[in-house]
Structure formats: C-alpha cells, structure tokens
C-alpha cells in the first residue's frame, strides 16, 4: 500500500504521493480502509464530536499477529483509560479509583475505535450505495478521498469517510442521516503510523492497585424457556436476528430477553421483560445520546427496541415484536444470578 518515496527531503514536504496505476473505485477505497485498520499499527489523537460536544482522546492501535488491541486515553485530565482487546474491555478510572472490566461477546468484532465502520461486502451494497464523492480533496491538511456509504432506504444511517490518499486511514468519519446531517463524528488531529508498537505501550499509566475492580459478567443467564418465545415480524429490509439471549440488566429484578438484529452495519437491540408493576411503563419514542428507543406494552411485557438508527427503524422493529404461539410462561427467577429455573 505504501510506495517507496524516493524524493528528496524537501520534495517530500511538497506531499509526494504514491502513483496509482488506476484510480481505485469506492469499493476498493473501502477495502483499503478496512485493510489499513486491520493491519496498521498507529497512534494518534482524535476528537469525538457529537452535537456541540467534543472530546479529545489519544489512541494507540496495535496489531499483533492479526489481533487488534487498543488503548484510549482521555485527555481531559481525569487520567481515564480504556484498554480493549478481543476478549475484554478494561476501563481505568483513576479519578474514581475504580477499574471496570467487561468481557466482550465473541460475536462482536468491534474491538477497536473504528472497527464499526463499514467494510465492503456484496450484502452491504444491496442496502447501501457506496460511492466516491468528487476527487481528491484537502482535508485536515492531507489529501483525502471522500467515500459515501449511503443508505438506500430510510431505515439506516449512512457514513461519510474522508480517507487519507496515502494510507487509506479514515481521518474523518461521520455518521449521518439521510438528509446528510451529521449525528456524530470522529476527527483525527494526528496519526502516526508505526512499524510496530510494543506491548508495553498498551499498558495503562496506572496499575489499578488498591482500586476497586468491578467485573461485569456478560455470561448469558441461562433460564429455561426464556430464550424462545418471542420473535419480530416484518423487519425492515436487510435486518436479521444475530443473537438471542437472556441477561441481567441493572435496575431490573428479572432477567431480560435481549434480541439483536443487524443489517451487517447497523444494529438494533430488542429488550423484553415482564412489566414491573412498580415501575412506570415506557411508551413511544425516546432519544438517548445518538440512539433512538421505542417502547411499547405487549401482553404484560415491556418491549423496547434500541439502536443508533433512525427513529422509523426502532419503531418498526418494536411494532413487529410478537409472542410466539404455545410459548411457555416466562420464568420469573428471583435474581439475575439465580440458577436455571425450569418452568412447570
């Protein structure tokens, strides 16, 4: 990917760029980006911007034998760090003398900051139009190609990516709605490619010794009769059930059914739990951060669809939730951690 630059020192300053035999198309650009993110060691600084807020962080992205691990350091003075690898996410919160450890689901591949960006596939192309916008543009001081991954219907968001011409790294990534309005974005202020990054660079600045360590188990709670019985009909095009589990969720006395639907890029979760008579029921559409949530009451259950997708999508998915015929009654175990309860 990176050609030899033989220019003299001073010519290099004038942005000597690799010569391309043929102009890569949008698909090839996406593939280049995916490859770069999966194979390149890099470290740098980025801004995460949503609405009027912006947060600056440092990132160290290491690839070792195909395994990506990452360290994110908050630059707000709190000293907070996040170390991610394939199996877990560890958050060091020195200002609270706390460390949070979360196991990763094996089915998620988003172990990196930009791991959630679209990667090319034929099925992606059936749902999204992938195109280059214009030619080379100067962005953030570098020559970049803009690639637009645009949804073909109203049920998902799109991405605009400013890919560095030389490295294909996304210097600017925007999640945007159909009208092109930006929902959130990541802007790099600096990226340094490295031949290798030492494992030691992934170590947090604090040891966490003497801190409170909190481990959140995401082991599915096995409760007989709870993993079946609900389904969603009339899903928006392209969405498929990718995971079905029962889990403990804070603030709830009973395990919650969690169904995950994905179109390969966007993800929507559906949560189903028996109505808590003491809690106020949730109805209709809400917004939480960049996500929309739609709740409804169904057959004595609270049904909520959540996702960073347009409101129409959570609404459609929540509306399609059905209780299967001949379903066993829900097992109301007393605590999330209780052993399996067999309903009669």
């Amino acid at each position, binding site marked *: 990917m990176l050609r030899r630059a033989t220019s003299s020192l001073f010519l290099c300053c004038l942005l000597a760029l690799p010569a391309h035999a043929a102009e890569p198309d949008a698909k090839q650009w996406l593939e280049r980006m995916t490859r770069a993110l999966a194979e390149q060691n890099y470290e740098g600084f980025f801004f995460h911007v949503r609405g009027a807020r912006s947060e600056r962080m440092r990132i160290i992205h290491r690839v070792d034998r195909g395994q990506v691990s990452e360290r994110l350091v908050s630059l707000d003075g709190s000293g907070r760090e996040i170390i991610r690898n394939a199996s877990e996410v560890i958050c060091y919160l020195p200002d*609270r003398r706390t460390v949070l450890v979360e196991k990763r689901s094996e089915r998620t591949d988003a172990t990196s900051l930009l791991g*959630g960006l679209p990667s090319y596939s034929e099925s992606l192309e059936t749902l999204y139009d992938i195109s280059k916008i214009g030619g080379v543009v100067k962005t953030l001081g570098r020559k970049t190609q803009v690639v637009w991954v645009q949804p073909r219907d109203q049920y998902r968001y799109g991405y605009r990516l400013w890919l560095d011409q030389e490295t294909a790294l996304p210097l600017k990534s925007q999640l945007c709605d159909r009208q092109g309005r930006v929902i959130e974005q990541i802007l790099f202020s600096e990226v340094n490619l490295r031949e290798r990054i030492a494992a030691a660079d992934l170590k947090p600045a604090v040891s966490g010794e003497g801190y409170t360590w909190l481990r959140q188990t995401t082991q599915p709670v096995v409760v007989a009769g709870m993993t079946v019985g609900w389904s969603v009909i009339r899903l928006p095009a392209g969405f498929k059930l990718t995971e079905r589990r029962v889990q403990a969720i804070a603030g709830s006395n009973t395990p919650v059914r969690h169904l995950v639907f994905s179109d390969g890029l966007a993800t929507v*979760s559906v949560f189903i739990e028996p109505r808590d008579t*003491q809690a106020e029921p*949730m109805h209709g559409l809400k917004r939480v951060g960049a996500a929309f949530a739609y709740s409804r009451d169904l057959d004595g259950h609270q049904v909520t669809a959540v996702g960073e997708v347009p409101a129409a999508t959570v609404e459609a998915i929540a509306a399609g939730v059905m209780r299967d015929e001949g379903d066993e009654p829900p097992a109301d175990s007393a605590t999330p951690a209780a052993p399996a309860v067999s309903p009669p």
Partner: protein
Amino acid sequence: MTDTVKEQLSACLDSQLRQDELDLLLKRVAKDRELRRTLGRYALTGEALRGSGAVRASTGFADRVSAAVAAEDGSPQRSVRIAPSVMRWLRPAAGFAVAAGVATVAVLSLQPSAPESNIIAQAPPAASASASNDSYIVPANTVSNFVPATRLTNYVVAHSEYSSPLGLRTVLSGVLSEEDEAAAAAESAEDVSQDAFPDDASRNAAGKSGAQVRQP
C-alpha cells in the same frame, strides 16, 4: 553523532533554532540516515511529552521535518499531521466542558440500594453470593424507585456491546460519556413522544447521587 547535533535536533523540534541553523541542520538530516532516525525518535518523544497537554501549536519547521522523516523510505514511523486550523475551530467546542465522567448510566448500574456506601460491600447479597470476590453482577435493586428513563439508559448500555457505529458507542457510551449526557439521558432529554414523568425530583436525585459516588 555529536551532542551538539542532538541538541540542535531537540531544539529544532521545539522550534528554538534560528532559521540559518535550521537550514543547516536540514541539510545534514537529508544526508544522514542515522540522524533522520534519531530525529524521528525525538519527535515521538516530544509528542509523548506534549501529548496530554494543550493542542500543540504549529511549528512550521518541526512539521516539515516530521513530514520529511515520515516520508523517508524505511523510517520506523510515518506521520500524518493535520493542519492546526482544525484545532482552532474545534477548540471552542472542546473547551473544558468535556469533563468526561463515569456516566450516570454506568454509576447507576453499580450503585447499591443504600446511598453513599461502598459499591462492593453493599452489593445485594443475592448477587455477591453467586459471584467471586472480585466480581460483581449487576445489582438488581439499585434504585428502589428507579424510573423508566433510567432503565432506558441501562438498555442502551446493554445494547452498546453489540453496536459501535463510531466505535465509542461500545463501552465508552456507558462509561466515558459525559456527565451531562448521562443526566440528559436520565431525564430523557428528548422525549419525542412527549411522555411526561411526574417524578422528576426523585429521578434527578438518583442521577445526582449516582454521579457523585466516590470511593473512600
């Protein structure tokens, strides 16, 4: 390599060399591979030192040198530097208001039923009984009068394990999102359906105590 050259290298990255000295040094760098490597290392060290501080001011020369070092064939690191103008427009937005906190979302999920107590020690017996000492299972009865909006944020946290439109949605959304966002979420800031929650006071109280949990 002499110490003088090393000093010059260091100085040039800090933009402390005179123009004629810079030119001379540049010429030497152009000819000397070892010098280029050293320069690369210096640049990175400087970056690391400056890393956590303020946005680095543009030092035209240092940038040019970095770019040159980066473009140098076979150099151990390459640099993609972005114009400082970006920093300028981002700055007002960034400001100091980005005091990232453990979002109320995350804290609520750890908060024991009794306020101002040690998180671990106060974990509900049912949860701690089945967990090893250093583990925790999301306490069930965190806030006795928890409200739907809080549950909603807990859903979002649970969902975020699967979704990462822009990466940060994973754990960051639950842990490193800003306090005000969490507060907004707890208050269901954008209540699209115009649902009204009568118990604003209790919810706010829950959110506030959550955000202020401190370890002894």
